[in-house]
């Protein structure tokens, strides 16, 4: 378990501030998407985020558009997990389908502070923070399988009986 630094945000962080609509049909490379992550919410984020960092937020994280880039840009910016009180349903699916950890917890966002170092044990369902340990329930098996495969595309490819190619990261 490595320590992760926390970027703390509020309720209703929407997909337009995570990845602005104006880029949705002009940016196609995940690395370039990452450079615009959270641009309209926190213009410092993309430049300062470190691999392994974690986002902790309030209710309804990822509300709005179905754009999958919202999950892709966070993943490629190095974000290890998003912990929120609740997630908008399409973002939740997109995150899993991109292999980005999403953790729903009522307690953790109330107690964890911006900049705090926390550690997450996903298999045990535990977050260790400065003020305590926060537990979270496991994902349903079918959904966990997608996450384990690294996302939906590698998962489907496996299901189709194809060998994983080099084009899959």
């Amino acid at each position, binding site marked *: 378990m490595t320590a992760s630094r926390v970027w703390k945000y509020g309720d*209703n962080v*929407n*997909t*337009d*501030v995570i990845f*602005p*609509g*104006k880029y*949705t*049909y*002009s940016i*196609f490379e995940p690395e370039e998407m990452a450079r615009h992550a959270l*641009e*309209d*919410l926190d213009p410092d984020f993309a430049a300062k985020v470190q691999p392994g960092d974690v986002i902790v937020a309030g*209710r*309804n994280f990822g*509300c*709005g*558009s*179905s*754009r*999958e880039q919202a*999950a892709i840009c966070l993943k490629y910016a190095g974000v290890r997990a998003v912990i929120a009180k*609740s*997630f*908008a*349903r*399409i973002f939740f*699916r*997109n995150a899993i*389908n*991109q292999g980005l950890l999403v953790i729903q917890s009522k307690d953790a966002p109330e107690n964890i502070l911006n900049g705090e170092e926390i550690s997450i044990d996903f298999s045990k369902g535990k977050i260790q923070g400065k003020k305590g340990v926060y537990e979270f329930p496991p994902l*349903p098996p*079918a*959904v966990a399988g997608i996450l384990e495969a690294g*996302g*939906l*595309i590698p998962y*489907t*490819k496996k*299901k*189709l009986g*194809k060998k994983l*190619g080099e*084009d*899959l990261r």
Partner: protein
Amino acid sequence: MGKTFTEKILGQKAGKNVSSGEVVTVSPDFILSHDNSAAIIKEFQKLGIAKVCNPQKIVIVLDHVVPAASETYALNHKIIREFVERQNIAHFFDIHNGICHQVFSEQGFAMPGKLVLGADSHTTSYGAFGAFSAGIGRSEVASLWATDEIWLRVPETLRIELDKRLSPGVSAKDVILKIIGDEGADRANYMAVEFAGDGASHFSLGSRLVLANMAAEMGAKNGYFAPEREVLAFLKSRARDTFEPVCSDPDAEYEDVLEYDLSLLEPQVACPHSVDNVRAVSEVLGTRFHQALIGTCTNGRLEDLEAAAEILRGKNVAAGVRALVIPASRLEYLKALKAGVLADLVEAGCLVLNPGCGPCLGAHQGILAPGEVALSTANRNFRGRMGSRDSEIYLASPATVAASVIEGKIADPRGFL
């Protein structure tokens, strides 16, 4: 215990008796995508198979940036056209048709009891026809093209009873803004929303589309109206398949039941920067703005353009205001053209653009500069959505936008009837 429409539709698709909370594997009737099809194609190609599983189920409508505003967008469209050709996808609608949700509806793909999934959050719209329809992501569409299968959690259902009738100058947009303002942007997260009651049953198809479309803004997986009269008549000449209306049982179990008296409602405005930041129009009268937008998948039909023309006919767009009008589809455009509605709007000083998403998602056709304010009939007002992160968006009904355009500041449409 009875079943909700959602439990029934997903149960039929899963081939078993299901209840809310269960996870089912299902195969949809139709799979919708738009300009994002180019990105979906890229994902599909990683799967290592040559052909899509069932081309008849795939519906692709180019609408987000039409016609192409740059070489990048043009290439995007070209990749899609070539894929459509190679894969024998018959249900392809090129740039001249309009916004996907309007085109999908008027082309008869949205039918009662069907399961529709689309790579767009406002896929909830087809609940206006009594379908179960929900937005999904791009990887999921690519995977569906390949396998024709997806997991869905059967949602709980929130029932919203609409009683009595709306007053003149108040419309479906005001109803859904009021509900979202009262209940919050995540009230229906993971849930189905069923609009019911005597008031709802008298809603036109266009009005039903407004509510089902914006159910997405309260987090809903899908919205729904029991299909009746006008909806069934609309489908008579255009339904793509046979269908069976599916309704909730009288003793179905709901997460909650909310009640609204439509007769008490006044025009509503969603203020920056969230759709649930809603005020009665009387509280924001006089707010200045630079650009108005009448259109989008929420409010770009003849009914909406007529409501605006009723107020703007013989009047002028105020100095300093840019008033954009974007019909939702080629067919709605044509109807408004033949009815003289567009002539009224153009005479008043509006700029009529081609059917499509326009500036709603901030890609082209009226981007906002820093410090600018828009008043729009769209469904979303998140920071930066229509351009600069230092711009603001207010959302209202077509009638409220039309009245405000005349005054050059937010106005109550009831004073213009």
